[in-house]
């Protein structure tokens, strides 16, 4: 017997929860970036599980799209992190307060 759709959704929800709390608890920009990647992966798991249980290929295609967007996000996000480090010599998000006052 195969695990039901609900167990895949529960796994996806737990991974998303870990990612969402990690974004708040992490202080450095790279840690937050990795937590966002974890949340994207949790959503991908939901797409693939629904694709399996409804016999439709669309879910897997959109996983492919999400992966492409994640790759673009990695390139731009790490570029921003490097530019930020060059100006502030730190990637702590608390130091990114130039516009605060």
């Amino acid at each position, binding site marked *: 017997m195969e695990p039901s759709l609900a*167990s895949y959704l529960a796994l996806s929800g737990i*991974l998303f929860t870990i990612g969402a709390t990690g974004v708040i608890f992490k202080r450095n920009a790279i840690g937050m970036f*990795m937590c966002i990647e974890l949340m994207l992966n949790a959503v991908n798991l939901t797409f693939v599980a629904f694709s*399996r249980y409804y016999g439709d290929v669309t879910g*897997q295609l959109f996983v492919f799209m999400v992966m492409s*967007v*994640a*790759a673009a996000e990695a390139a731009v996000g790490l570029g921003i992190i490097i530019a930020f480090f060059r100006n502030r010599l730190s990637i702590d998000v608390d130091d990114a307060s130039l516009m605060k006052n």
Partner: protein
Amino acid sequence: MASTVLFYLFAGLAIASGISMVYHKNPLYSAISLIGVFVALSCIYVSLAAPFIAAVQILIYAGAIMVLVVFVIMLLNLDEDKPLNRLRYLYFVGGGLGLILLVQTFFVFYAVMRAPNHPADQTKMVGRTLDLGSAMYSQYLLPVEIVGVLLLMAIIGAVILVRRLSQPQLELVIEHELEQEHRKR
């Protein structure tokens, strides 16, 4: 039976790696834990009859994106994450958000369990590369083209962001203005 055991094995591995990613203060340990999550999810995709997505998961996430992340961590020579002392209320915000999302997860779990479940059709296999490729280049041609344009824009944007200014005297002018602004205050 075997698929259930494998599901619980890889689900446990994914959750443990995810918790270890958030727990570790050293960014490099977090990155290695995240690779563990990606590999476990890839094994789950194989059990969901999606071999192409599993291969792409390893290639793009564990291969390309994590190499980029580890490269940046090594390049910037990051030290350990500082403990958060200034923003103590973030503990409560994060804990509350996690609790709400967890409750929502279990609500979804019970709602789907109570719904009339229809098991997956074992004979129907949609995850083959042939099916994905033919759908990608006939029915979903426009989204694929849009993703291509998006990747091109991301490459150009990353190059422009990381590049130093071509006129060094411009940086001097900006620094001078910032200094004057600072003195005025």
